């Protein structure tokens, strides 16, 4: 199944998933039943903004504003959404 991310889509963390900062690891993590995934800084910045209210377009806009020096950031953000939806971490609302 191909995952298409539109700028007007709104996402939330999947049920029974939790996103939090881990001080001991200096990383964001996503936790779910008996598993976890550790996110590098950039990926964490994307997921942090996913709140069931902001659209994908608004998340991109905010990240571009926050990280003005990052090249090609939009494609990477969309790529992160594709992966997170594909892995079941995010659900569309």
């Amino acid at each position, binding site marked *: 199944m191909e995952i298409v991310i539109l700028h007007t889509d709104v996402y939330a963390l999947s049920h*029974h998933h939790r996103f939090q900062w881990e001080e001991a*690891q200096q990383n964001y993590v996503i936790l779910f039943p008996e598993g976890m*995934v550790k*996110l590098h800084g950039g990926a964490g910045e994307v997921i942090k903004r996913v709140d069931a209210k902001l659209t994908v377009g608004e998340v991109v806009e905010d990240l571009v504003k926050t990280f003005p020096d990052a090249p090609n950031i939009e494609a990477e953000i969309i*790529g992160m959404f594709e*992966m997170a939806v594909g892995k079941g971490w995010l659900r569309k609302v």
Partner: protein
Amino acid sequence: MTQASLGESAVQKVVHAQQNNGVAASTTNTQPLWLLAEVTYRCPLHCAFCYNPTDYDKHTQNELSTEQWIQALRDARKLGAIQLGISGGEPLLRDDIEEIVVEAKKLGYYSNLITSGVGLTEKRIQAFKDGGLDHIQLSMHDISEEINNFITNTKTFELKKKVAAMIKNHGYPMVLNVVIHRYNIGHVKEILEMAEALGADYIELANTQYYGWSLVNRSQLMPTKEQVDEAEAITNAFRANPNNKMKIFFVVPDYFSDRPKKCMNGWGEVFMIVTANGDVLPCHSARVLPNMQFPNVRDNGLEYAWKESPAFNQYRGDDWMKEPCRSCSEKANDLGGCRCQAFLLTGDAETADPVCTKSPHHHLITQAIEDSKNPVLVSKPIVFRNDKNSKKVIAGEFDDRVAEFHSLP
């Protein structure tokens, strides 16, 4: 934000406890990300495949107190623990699980209750929900009442179905764990259909691994290679059906695989168990290993246990390896397999896991697979996991059953 920070590279690692009975991690990271609290060895079920120690009866009188568990949770969290499994025995036989759950939530753990369902009431599950328990994993045994009641040596079939519904009604994901063995492997299709019908979100088909009671009962429990292959094929067909939403984990039994498992994803790498009596272990069955003194939370605490205790450092990395592991090109993939299995089957904890085809002891595994076809061996009665049998183990009464192994598992 850098180029390398997003996309696939964003995921530093995926840790999943349902694969390979451990969790994945790089060998350089030795944080106990996963803390398993085996809060009691008491259990109302008597499963013939239980991996608990056969001498567990020794540890039913000296369980840690609520305060000691709470302290252990706090100390482990400081070391980086984040996934908490509350297990046993049957954890619900303790009446302080509610307090432990509240503390886990306060500390930021993702908490998992691993239960047979016996003792789960509306009142308790509501308290767990209010306290912030994240998830409940329920063990199921078969679609047939007869097999469920036989293998657990209890009448718990109807109760498990009720508990499954209760879990769902309280908004928990339904995660079922089914241990697979000779008596239910022929029902894998029906088990998957039952789980789907119950509304399960995840199901783990955990092929029996042979430690503890399951090793004592190996000749009774072990399916044939053909049965395992068929069960896997049925599982794959079920997964391929787009109408089935449930996620399935099929844990391949290592006897039937030609490469050993990277047990616990490395000794003392990401996994830490605190047992009912406070012993701290790097894996479920480590106490079978000879000449090894495991730390206890009552003595030096968890930081010492994880970082400094000789036991946790004994098999970290690969310096301890002998040939053929030492010069093996695959040693980083599997770290030579399981130390306990190596010891139980060969008498040498530092040799290659006999599951490996390169092991000089691999014939022990091929023989066990061959024996699984042999109806003479399976005529031995099953030794159910109960207090009476555990006392007999301690008294040496089952020595003939384990004579081929190098320690009581």
